[in-house]
């Protein structure tokens, strides 16, 4: 197992290098001039040139690429054009917010999706199954940003208008007065802020996971070993959760790796809708400002997270299924 993980980590190095290269050239070859936002048509050519030199844009592309990679190897992602700060600092500040949002969302999605999938499989063709399938398909087909807007409309704006007992905040990760809260209030406040964005991200994923789990579970509960478990006199919950679920989860676990790119592209929208100060919003804003170092750094971080996520899903796979343990 340990050698398997080590081998996969080693294999990830060229992969990340390739991704970094791709990111660099895609961003730098994209049309548009990053200096345009600092300048106006009356700026003298000398001043224009000075800005380009300051930003390091006067060098030919291959040289900039090698310099960028060299800095990257030392953990330096360059300085932001627009924030006048090292990109690493910005990412360090915003990454925890994105991780909080995405882990909550994917955790919620898997818990919800798996439970619903089991319930649907155990009660196949029941009313509950049909309703859950329909509702699931609805959320599955909804773009998450639209879902997010609707949730803001209902649980934030609407809740306020109609005086509901619970109103969820529609933006940011914490209240303005967060610093003055007691520890319990701080946790509460964080959770309140997290609820809407995490839910709107999770529902879309959960719908897919539920469909997967249902199909996989239906497949498993028809297997011979489930009959054996029942013939032993085991109760239905033990049969379902101890004997069927672990087998049914094997294909579902591959979804962890598969869904990560969806999840991160989802955070890009969701963070924008909820003004959530995270990586997604950062990358979107930086693209609009042509802040190349931030776009490259942010995208690279997402790419690395996807690579690591897939590694984790492979490891989980082996943990659940003893037949594919790499020992």
């Amino acid at each position, binding site marked *: 197992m340990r050698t398997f993980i080590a081998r996969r980590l080693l294999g990830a190095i060229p992969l990340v290098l390739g991704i970094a290269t791709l990111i660099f050239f895609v961003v730098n070859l994209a049309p548009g001039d990053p200096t345009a936002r600092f300048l106006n048509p009356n700026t003298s050519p000398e001043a224009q040139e000075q800005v380009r030199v300051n930003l390091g844009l006067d060098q030919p592309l291959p040289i900039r690429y090698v310099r960028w990679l060299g800095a990257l190897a030392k953990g330096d992602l360059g300085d932001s054009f627009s924030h006048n700060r090292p990109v690493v600092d910005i990412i360090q500040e915003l990454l925890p917010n994105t991780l909080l949002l995405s882990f909550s969302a994917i955790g919620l999605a898997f818990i919800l999706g798996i439970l619903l999938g089991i319930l649907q499989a155990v009660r196949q063709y029941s009313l509950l199954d049909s309703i859950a399938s329909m509702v699931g398909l609805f959320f599955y087909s909804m773009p998450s940003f639209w879902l997010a807007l609707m949730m803001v409309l209902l649980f934030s704006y609407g809740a306020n208008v109609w005086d509901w007992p619970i109103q969820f905040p529609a933006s940011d990760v914490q209240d303005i007065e967060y610093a003055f809260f007691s520890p319990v209030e701080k946790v509460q406040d964080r959770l309140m802020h997290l609820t809407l964005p995490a839910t709107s991200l999770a529902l879309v994923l959960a719908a897919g996971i539920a469909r997967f789990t249902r199909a996989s579970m239906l497949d498993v509960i028809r297997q011979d070993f489930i009959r054996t478990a*029942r*013939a*032993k*006199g085991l109760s239905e919950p033990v049969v379902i959760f101890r004997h069927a679920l*672990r087998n049914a989860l094997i294909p579902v676990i591959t979804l962890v790796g598969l869904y990560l790119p969806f999840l991160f592209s989802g955070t890009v929208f969701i963070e924008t809708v909820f003004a959530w100060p995270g990586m997604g919003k950062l990358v979107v804003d930086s693209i609009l400002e042509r802040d190349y170092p931030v776009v490259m750094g942010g995208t690279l971080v997402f790419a690395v997270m996807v690579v690591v996520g897939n590694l984790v899903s492979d490891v989980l796979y082996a943990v659940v299924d003893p037949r594919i343990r790499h020992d």
Partner: protein
Amino acid sequence: MTTRPDLLVVTDLRTHFTTEVGVARAVDGVSFQVGMGETLGIVGESGCGKTVTALSILQLIPSPPGEILKGSSILFDGEELLKAAPARLREIRGNDISMIFQEPMTSLNPVLKVGHQIEEALRLHRGLSKSEARSAGVALLAEVGISDPEERYDCYPHHLSGGMLQRIMIAIALSCEPRVLIADEPTTALDVTVQAQILDLLAKLQDRHGMALLLITHDLGVIAEVCDRVVVMYGGQIVETGTTQDILTRPEHPYTQGLLASLPGSGDRDVRLNPIPGTVPSPVNWPAGCRFRDRCPVAEERCAESVPELLPLSEETTRLARCWRVGSIGGPVEGST
């Protein structure tokens, strides 16, 4: 014939399945008894309802689509299993009545260690602690003839061979010392040499524990080796019953005769095999009249009109056959040998 008190009495068992093309009458009015410590064989081709009969006893039929009809009765030691509450039924399963299945490779959970799967029944029915269950489980593995039981205990099913897995299935089934063991084609998926070992093991364990054995098989050779009495099934019904001796030497029903005739002879190498022509019809539409009629070498017109009853051949009520020609066709039928 048997003087042993009946432990399991199945009366008029009907298990039907609702399918898209109609109702499949997989088991259609089956009655038999198993005495204490007795070995009863149920024999017949695939699709005759043997397995469904076995699964019905422990009510392991997937429902829907399967359903055991009202009027069926399964008495275990005087208790009606078909009216037992689910909790009571779970107490009986794996404890009083155990079952082993045809496919050992798929009958064990691939993601759980075999030891865990043995412990489950012990801890559930016997209330043993984890360490007690472990030592009992290891002892069971040794009893069913597994070498290095300590080591095998922590194996996953994919580490073990089919024969070993079937031994483990037997260990699981025997763990709570059941009074009835139902073995559904326990040797069919195994190599011939392993088949004999498993049969020997079953017979040995049956002697030691004094349990009744309901052995389901399509192999008359297996029947000859271990069974006291035989039930021959065809088309979801019993067509003939009797002692193993009677069935093998004086078969009355043309189907039983056909089964015997289709066995490879022990000595005659030159004799060609004599298969029964055709296949078992679909349980959705059994032929009217005798269900074996289409394949029967001695079918008459009246066979198409009505279903013959399962009639006693003589004074002894344990020797029954379902054929109009019963009594008139002792010995092999012409053209079937």
